[in-house]
């Protein structure tokens, strides 16, 4: 049950045994319109409009798009550009809550998922604004409808949570095993598969036991404990570890007959179908030694980061970085006014001593990165090519197959910013290909 490559970082799972804490209602929420991969929805509310909790604020624009919902009942204060965790300021809806936290009147449960047709299930999932909670935030209903020519026979649930520090999936599996299992069932039905596997790293044995005990009798769901190794949670490597199938390079999991969903997504799907509740809150791990009281917090989507950190005792003096996500792939924040998104699995506050700074010394070709790369690329030479602006040769080195997991930079002796080279390299390579196609055609 292993994949080749990868690294063994020290895991710092400080909050593994902290029960999830619910954040109290706040006065102000900022809900960005773009929170998922795909076209952002169109805003369907205006300034001053009264909204109920869970009321959709945008309507999906096209198939690969979902709407965002109000986290609480209140009034739409302003629609403008607000700081966004993934880069420049972007349009968002600012809502001031009226304190009642009353559900929008159309919210109603849809009964047992076993009596609903797959198409109906997918519609409920889309209307509930469900996206992958693992971090990629790809619209769930799109993943559940693979094209005819790509038959899918297996659903895999990603409970690996291989990023150090993060424990949100762990808590979800421990605290709601039954709902997660039901959620898996409804996803299997929506996808039309009879088998499902749950992959959990063997540093979360209690979660595995909890899920096994909660397995519904009529569902063929097997829970497997996998070796704790980063990046076990990468879709391609989770599939390989569980089924030995290799997703073709440049392809998607469905190319090898599999769809992968995060365990948190399964729970949210269950809430959407059983209780009719859209995705407006999720478990976020707030951790790192720069935050006074690390905790797993049930946070409403749209809560500014500063508020969440305040709720956990605020930052210590010598904070170095505040990161959305884990330390291996997380995105650094420069402005704490940015709100929590659907895909935010963790808020990591690290002190300077915990952080390793990049030095960009010359590569001494030690080969550590070649051993660590789970996609079997050659990061040392690829990085050198980008550093010297030799973008035309990157295709030969398969830069587009890099999953930016950071394993190479973790073991790089010269502390080179390899993932930054590859992000840049991919952009420049696509530019190069476009120019070539332009000149050839």
């Amino acid at each position, binding site marked *: 049950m292993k994949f080749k490559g990868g690294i063994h970082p020290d895991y710092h799972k400080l909050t593994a045994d902290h029960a999830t804490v619910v954040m109290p209602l706040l006065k102000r929420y900022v809900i960005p319109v773009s929170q998922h991969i795909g076209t952002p929805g169109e805003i369907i509310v205006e300034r001053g409009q009264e909204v109920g909790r869970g009321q959709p604020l945008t309507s999906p624009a096209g198939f690969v798009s979902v709407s965002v919902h109000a986290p609480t009942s209140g009034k739409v204060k302003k629609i403008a550009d607000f700081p966004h965790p993934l*880069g*420049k*300021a972007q349009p968002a809806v600012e809502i001031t809550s009226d304190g009642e936290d009353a559900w929008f009147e159309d919210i109603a449960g849809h009964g047992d998922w076993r009596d609903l047709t797959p198409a109906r299930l997918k519609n409920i999932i889309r209307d509930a604004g469900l996206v992958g909670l693992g971090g990629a935030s790809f619209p769930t209903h799109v993943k559940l409808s693979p094209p005819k020519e790509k038959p899918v026979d297996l659903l895999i649930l990603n409970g690996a949570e291989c990023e150090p520090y993060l424990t949100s999936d762990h808590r979800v599996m421990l605290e709601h095993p039954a709902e997660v299992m039901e959620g898996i069932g409804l996803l299997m039905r929506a996808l039309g598969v009879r088998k499902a596997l749950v992959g959990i790293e063997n540093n979360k044995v209690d979660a595995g036991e909890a899920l096994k005990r909660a397995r519904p009798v009529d569902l063929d769901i097997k829970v497997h404990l996998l070796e704790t190794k980063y990046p076990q949670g990468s879709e391609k490597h989770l599939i390989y570890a569980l089924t030995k199938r290799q997703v073709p390079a440049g392809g998607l999991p469905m190319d090898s007959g599999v769809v992968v969903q995060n365990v948190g997504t399964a729970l949210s799907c269950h809430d959407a179908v059983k209780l009719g509740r859209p995705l407006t809150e999720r478990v976020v791990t707030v951790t790192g030694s720069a935050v006074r009281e690390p905790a797993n917090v049930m946070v409403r989507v749209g809560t500014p980061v500063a508020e969440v950190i305040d709720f956990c005792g605020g930052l210590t003096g010598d904070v170095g970085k505040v990161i959305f996500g884990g330390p291996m792939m997380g*995105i*650094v*924040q*420069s*402005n704490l006014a940015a709100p929590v998104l659907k895909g935010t699995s963790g808020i990591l506050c690290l002190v300077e001593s915990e952080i390793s*700074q*990049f030095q*960009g010394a010359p590569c001494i070709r030690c080969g550590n990165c070649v051993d660590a790369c789970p996609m079997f690329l050659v990061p040392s030479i690829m990085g050198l090519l980008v*550093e010297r602006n030799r973008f035309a040769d990157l295709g030969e080195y398969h830069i587009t197959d890099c999953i930016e997991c950071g394993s190479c930079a973790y073991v790089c002796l010269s502390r080179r*910013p390899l993932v*930054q*080279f590859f*992000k*840049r390299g991919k*952009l*420049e390579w696509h530019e190069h290909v476009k120019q070539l196609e332009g000149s050839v055609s």
Partner: protein
Amino acid sequence: MLTPTAVLAGIGLVSGLGLAVAAKVFAVEIDPRQEEINDQLPGANCGGCGYAGCADFSAALVEGKADPGDCPVCDDATLRLLGEIMGVEVGESVRHVALIMCQGGLSVAHREGRYNGHASCASADLIAGGGKLCSYGCLGLADCQAVCAFGAIEMIEDCIARVIPSRCTACGKCVAACPKHLIRLVPANTQIHVLCSNTEKGAAARKACNVSCLGCKKCEKTFEDDPRIIIHDHLAKVDYLKPPTDQAVVEVCPTGALTVRLLDREDRARQPS
């Protein structure tokens, strides 16, 4: 004495015949104009035009991939002649010069965080916009300087680049290299410029940088009858087809974003005022 010359002539003749046959077998048709152009070119095969030699450059010229101006060695007379052969109009009307639309060095602009990574603007731009509070401003990691073949760009202070007009040949390489798209080719005879690209509202712009354009429209108002500066998206833009000439208009600007910079006479860039 006769035999050596006879032997040599014989070998020469045989080889010549063989080659004549080979020339027919491997004939490759070449555009007649290519021969004509090739004769005009200096024939030094210096590679300054980016091709392997003059023959290669003339082939590219015929296929229209290159233009006569690429050859750094040819004098104007030859360039005009090449233009006629190709039936292409050659020569430039007004000299243009590159201009960086930003003055936000760290003495006036604020950082949002300490950037730690690859020392290249295009790479820094991928990480939270590069860590400068004004996300439109110059990151000062010298991508433009690295790509300028004429040494016409210098880093005059932390986080800001500046073009040396006298050395700039308007080749456009820096325009493409800047990830924030701050560099424009402007006529060298213009003097008044808005050196800012921040399109945020006034309050946010002022917080990000002391010399940012707040979109206050004061400069626009001074040209009631024939508009020479237009405000668009909280940012003033000079109309370079009908540029303002009266340098007094610069006093109107509260932050100094609208400023005078002579582009045709300086050889060394003056320190920022």
